[in-house]
């Protein structure tokens, strides 16, 4: 069982994610669009620059709902930081840290810890907003709560590893490096239950993305192009 779940499943996860996402992007790309959908005022800068701004800062949302903008911008920014932070779990860049004279472990402990708490709070606020506000409650269904709760569960287990009883990152790192280099012989599967749960939930999320509304992280480029292009 362990062998299957921790040696085989991760590859399926990645495969499903990549195939799923590519398929969705492909169908969007190939679907024909007769006629322009331009929405004025069109941006002064180039279409792509304005879309990048939209993706990074959510200006449309800022103009209409500052509270939601606050919650959701922090939430997404934290997600992005966490994503970057996790790269270090899989591979490290000692030379880079040395060049910048940063103690990477201390830095990641502090910044990772802070971001972990921030995203937890943001996710809880977004969850409250889902049933606290009439107009959002009306449009919230199982997929919406599920997505938030899943992310929250992943965040909580992640935080437990950082703030809970001692967690040995080194074992996990070795596991991933062996997994990615396909060195199954002699691979040690981490036994820490919190990590195991965190890892499985994260995979569930990754598999779920291409089939859910979380696809909006890619779709935004398509939809914004439609209204910003003249």
């Amino acid at each position: 069982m362990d062998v299957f779940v921790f040696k085989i499943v991760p590859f399926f996860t990645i495969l499903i994610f990549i195939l799923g996402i590519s398929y969705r992007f492909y169908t969007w790309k190939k679907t024909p669009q007769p006629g322009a959908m331009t929405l004025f005022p069109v941006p002064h800068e180039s279409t792509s620059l304005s879309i990048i701004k939209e993706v990074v800062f959510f200006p449309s949302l800022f103009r209409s709902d500052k509270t939601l903008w606050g919650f959701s911008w922090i939430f997404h920014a934290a997600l992005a930081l966490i994503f970057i932070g996790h790269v270090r779990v899989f591979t490290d860049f000692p030379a880079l840290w040395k060049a910048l004279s940063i103690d990477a472990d201390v830095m990641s402990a502090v910044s990772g810890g802070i971001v972990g708490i921030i995203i937890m709070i943001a996710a809880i606020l977004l969850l409250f907003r889902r049933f606290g506000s009439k107009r959002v409650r009306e449009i919230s269904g199982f997929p919406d709560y599920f997505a938030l709760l899943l992310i929250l569960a992943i965040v909580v287990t992640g935080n437990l590893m950082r703030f809970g009883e001692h967690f040995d990152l080194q074992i996990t790192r070795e596991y991933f490096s062996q997994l990615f280099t396909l060195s199954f012989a002699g691979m040690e599967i981490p036994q820490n239950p919190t990590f195991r749960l965190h890892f499985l939930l994260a995979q569930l999320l990754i598999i779920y993305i291409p089939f859910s509304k979380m696809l909006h992280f890619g779709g935004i480029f398509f939809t914004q192009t439609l209204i910003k292009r003249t």
Partner: protein
Amino acid sequence: MGNKDKVTGEGLRKSVIDSIKAIDKGPKVLKLYMDMCARCGTCAEVCPVYYGEPTELRNPVVRSDLIRSVFKKHSTISGKILGALAGAKDFDGDLQKFVDAFYECTGCRRCATFCPFGIDNSVITRKGRAIADSLGYTPETMKNVVKTSLETCNTDGASPEAFKAAIDFLEEEMKDEHGIDIKIPVDVVGTDYFYVPPSGDVLVNPEATTGIAKVFYVLGMQDKWTMSSKCFDGANYGLFTGNDADMKADNKPYVDEAKRLGVKYMFMGECGHAYRIMKMMMEKGKWWGELPFKVINCMEWTADRIKEGKLQFDKSKNPMPVTYHDPCNFGRSCGIVEAPRIILKASCQDFREMYPNRGENWCCGGGGGLSAMDDIREFRMKVSSVKKMEQISDTGAEYLATACSNCKRQFMQLIETHNAAFAIGGVHDMLSRAILINGKAAERVDWEAGG
């Protein structure tokens, strides 16, 4: 036009589901909107209808979900496997619910302006109306407008004779105002500009048309323009019933007429959706191939002449506070927002903005053709227009200028219903009252409030 008789039963169910499944093949915009919505609730926050009375079915997402959930059920992997857990739901056979819901969206596109993804719920609305139309469910009032327009080339069903009589009357009015002959040329072949107003600007609020005639006169271009006694109404309700074939059929006579008249410009009047169809859809989409003329708009044209210093005004003719309502189709859909302001500021003493304005303006509550539907007058008066009326009263304006016959009709009824203390009219109307001809503005005191 769509089906004459309403389709019912299993045939109805199958047709609806098939039309929704067809979204998978495009257009891209609809397909994306089926897959993409983070369900953040921003659209409801900025929607004039939901603002007016926030019932669940008026929440833009709930309305759009009428189609989206059926699409999920039949055309997505997650919906097929997970069903309701993925937000999928089969069509329950109640098409009347679609009709009622989709004829409560004004198609104003305000939601798209603020949605983080730019999701334009009016596109889904139009699809919903198209499905209803194909099965004979378009509300009678709308069906009749389309029918009249296809038969007579204008939405009022006016004859060429009635049109010519109205033009004669306008020429007399201008003679009274200025003591000189200012012509409105009709059916003249070989001029440069073919003026296509909404019929309302000839038959109901004709001052916009006299304003245009005066501009041509002042510029010494009396013989450079013409109207057509056959095609004098740019309004095109195919846009609103979702029926593309009707929209094109309604459009074609105008393009043919412009070719017959041999003009260089199709000179669109103060009608937002008419200009949007001509400029953004017909011309851009090359419905009828390459054209021997260009589509332009009267407000931009006049504003350019003002900027060139070719027109002079006596602003004291318009002393009252004036504000401008950006028709959604001119503002958000065509980007014409500065020109009307240039004209109004040049011809009025006290121009005031309402807030927000331009691309963020609130709909009058009669968009998407709803303004023509007296069967939902109560909804237009009490729900979809609430925010608009607040906006206007905040300005303290006594005259509301707007460049759209549908908006004007909506406002006339609003004024009547709520005893509002402002008059309604067009942009060139203000110009018509203040423009100097041979150094003198029109001599008149009996301006009708709102026509």
